[in-house]
């Protein structure tokens, strides 16, 4: 019994109605960011709270791109996030594969260890890391950031990859091993291509995480040449007069890569996330 046409219509309009509220709430802050970034300075405060500005201008974007270190920060962020995503995904693939396919001594403790590292507030480790990295010459360098981001991404990325590997039947690599492949070859040639969506999702997740990280970026790297985007953005707000327009324009630009990534990966996240995040 499915109920009458009328109750069904009511049910579906409620369904869409509630979802529309979600959509509006999700998009409104982002809309505001874009709106302020394209409002010219002279009406920014006068019409500060209007839903639509009476004039549009891209002057803030010109300021950000032309008259600041923005492009340098952007380049740094791309390098750091890109390499972090690649490195943590490769390492997480290897360890996730081990968790998925082998029962081995110490597995329980290794998994536990990975979970525990997620429990500590980052602040507690920054000072020790700062002194370790200082002696290694890794402060004020993009390499240092890449290493630290990779390490912090690995636990979750490993669980994510493990859940994707769990979805691939063991038969496949057994068939490959009988066909004459070593396990490693079977992993690279058979299993990895089949988990491609999972690999993309994991890489996207790591990229997003590294893209927005600010604590390490701020405290490990003080020189502008090794600063990432979040630090650059923060610089705007610590100046004597806050220039909201350019700051928001920079914010919008910062959002573009993560939004693109997110639209690509969100479908796979639903497939992989619970298992990965929750199994532990």
């Amino acid at each position, binding site marked *: 019994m499915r109920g009458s046409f009328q109750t069904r219509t009511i049910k579906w309009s409620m369904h869409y109605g509630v979802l529309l509220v979600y959509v509006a709430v999700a998009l409104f802050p982002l809309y505001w960011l874009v709106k302020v970034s394209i409002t010219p300075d002279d009406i920014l405060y006068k019409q500060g709270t209007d839903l639509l500005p009476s004039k549009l201008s891209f002057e803030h974007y010109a300021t950000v791109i032309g008259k600041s270190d923005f492009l340098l920060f952007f380049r740094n962020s791309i390098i750091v996030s890109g390499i972090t995503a690649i490195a943590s995904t490769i390492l997480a693939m290897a360890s996730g594969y081990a968790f998925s396919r082998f029962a081995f001594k110490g597995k329980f403790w290794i998994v536990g260890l990975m979970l525990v590292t997620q429990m500590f507030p980052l602040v507690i480790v920054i000072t020790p890391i700062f002194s370790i990295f200082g002696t290694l010459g890794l402060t004020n360098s993009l390499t240092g950031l890449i290493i630290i981001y990779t390490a912090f991404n690995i636990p979750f990325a490993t669980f994510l990859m493990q859940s994707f590997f769990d979805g691939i039947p063991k038969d496949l690599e*057994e068939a490959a*091993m009988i*066909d004459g*492949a070593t396990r490693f070859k079977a992993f690279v040639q*058979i299993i990895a291509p089949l988990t491609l969506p999972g690999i993309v999702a994991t890489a996207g997740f790591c990229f997003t995480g590294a893209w927005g990280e600010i604590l390490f970026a701020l405290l490990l790297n003080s020189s502008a040449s090794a600063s990432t985007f979040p630090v650059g953005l923060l610089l705007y707000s610590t100046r004597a007069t806050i220039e909201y327009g350019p700051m928001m324009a920079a914010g919008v630009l910062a959002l573009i890569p993560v939004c693109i990534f997110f639209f690509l990966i969100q479908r796979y996240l639903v497939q992989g996330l619970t298992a990965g995040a929750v199994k532990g």
Partner: protein
Amino acid sequence: MASIAINGVRKDYGAVPVLKGVDLAIDSGEFVVLVGPSGCGKSTLLRIIAGLEDLSAGEIRIGDMRVNELAPRDRDIAMVFQSYALYPHMSVRDNMSYSLKLKRTPAERIAEAVKRAGDKLGLEALQDRKPRALSGGQRQRVAMGRAIVRNPKAFLFDEPLSNLDARLREQMRFEIRKLHRDIGATSVYVTHDQIEAMTMSDRIVAMNGGIIQQVGAPLELYDNPANIFVAGFIGSPAMNFIKARAVREDNRIALYVGATKLLGMPAPDRLPDNGEVIAGVRPERIGLLPSSEAGVAATVELVEPTGVATVVHADIAGQQLKLFTTERLQLDVHQPVSLTIRPADVCLFDPISGERLRVPR
């Protein structure tokens, strides 16, 4: 092509024994079927031969070589999985050539081998398709093709037909058999379907509970089962088992069901002290006469015409049995009939151990 020897193989998962000491010698070129109920350890044994599973004790030899320590890839065997395990991202051609590529076979030799295997299995037109674009039967063929291109020492099959419908299964049964005749490769074939076991094998290995129950040619197992498990597992409809009492008369015995005398027959070499035995008779060996003439009195309980034959369920002194007749008899439910059983067609079993009680010839 090579022989396979399984010597004293045991396998435990933790404290649970799954194989409890298996010995088996398979000749070069032989087609051996491992049959048994679900969970009896057939797949485990096959995977141990393939090297996918470590064994807890014992030895596996392929040809003259002990292979316990060898990785699957070094054993030179091919395996067809129940799930087929085709590589989903590779075309049929690539699936079949993967093993040869790993061996660094020259490209033209690969192409030749793949073409030959494809022709044999009727895969010519499908070479460029991905597995997901194939029907179940076609996938099965590709899995077979992947195994035969390599020309391995032995083939291992793990229930390769169980995902096919009845008609296709019958056809593939025939084709695998034919392929074996052409290639003559040593094959170990796992199934829980006793019809497959009967029709395909040179020898059947009947397993139960991690122990080999009997090894022999199909008809030998059918006519001469070593115990009640084999007797009941092989044959469909299954053998009738009648709880009977044996009364000794010199070197003969008389079998009684309740107060009804079933038949007299030569005495087996031993009898349980209380005379309780189980008498096994195949349904097609029981004769049926419509009226209460000479023979054992019974009543009809149910009649199932299948076309080829009619299956009659009858009741003898409260015990059910099935029989088979190809004559089109007019039978009513509850009609009294009389049954004839020849002493030579009866197998006696010890009701406690399940072992066969042999009648000396």
